[in-house]
């Protein structure tokens, strides 16, 4: 199984829940967005309150949590995106 090291950025409520702005994690190259989220929840159980109200951004494109397979590469940037409140 190929694994990649990706950086994960935490924003807003997710940063408060994890106590982190960013971290590096190692994950399989082929993983679904839901599996990636579950991996993050395992590392940071307090994230579970966001589970129904969060999407990810992978290489700055939004990805909802689901079966969609991501093809991650070393150095890719993933961000946890709680509900938006700009404007």
């Amino acid at each position, binding site marked *: 199984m190929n694994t990649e090291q990706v950086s994960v950025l935490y924003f807003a409520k997710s940063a408060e829940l994890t106590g982190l702005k960013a971290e590096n994690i190692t994950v399989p190259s082929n993983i679904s967005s839901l599996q990636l989220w579950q991996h993050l929840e395992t590392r940071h159980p307090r994230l579970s309150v966001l589970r129904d109200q969060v999407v990810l*951004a992978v290489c700055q494109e939004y990805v909802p949590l689901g079966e969609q397979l991501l093809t991650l590469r070393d150095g890719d940037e993933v961000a946890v995106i709680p509900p938006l409140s700009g404007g």
Partner: protein
Amino acid sequence: MAADGGQDLITLTTDKLSADGVSESVTCPSCGAVSLFIGTTRDHFEGKKVIRLEYEAYSPMAESELRKICREIRTKWPSVRHINIQHRLGVVPITEASVIIGISSPHRSDSLEAVKYCINTLKATVPIWKKEIYESGEPCWKENKECLWADTGKDPK
């Protein structure tokens, strides 16, 4: 960026925003209309007194999403000339502007519609977050109803 020299100006800044500055930046001789939207911070929410707002952004992605919005505007309203979108980050005191959008076009209909589209789409798609700090009680991260993954009970289609 429009083919005829129309500009997309996008700024994320902790500095105080200026409506005059935005208006001047999109004004041009060929345009009969400059439309502006200014989003300001309210001092109350559900009976609670708000003492300030704090904004946070995923800045590189916020800029790329704002550029996407500009491209969409230019596709829907090709006569639009200049677009200037400024969003403030960090602490924003009450009544100060958190966002200013200025758009120019030859005739008023296009810039008015484009400004409305711009703020509505910004609220749905740009990775910026607002926290309300109250006089008493816990601060609260707000959620735009336009955001498809916010918990509004609405079924997104």
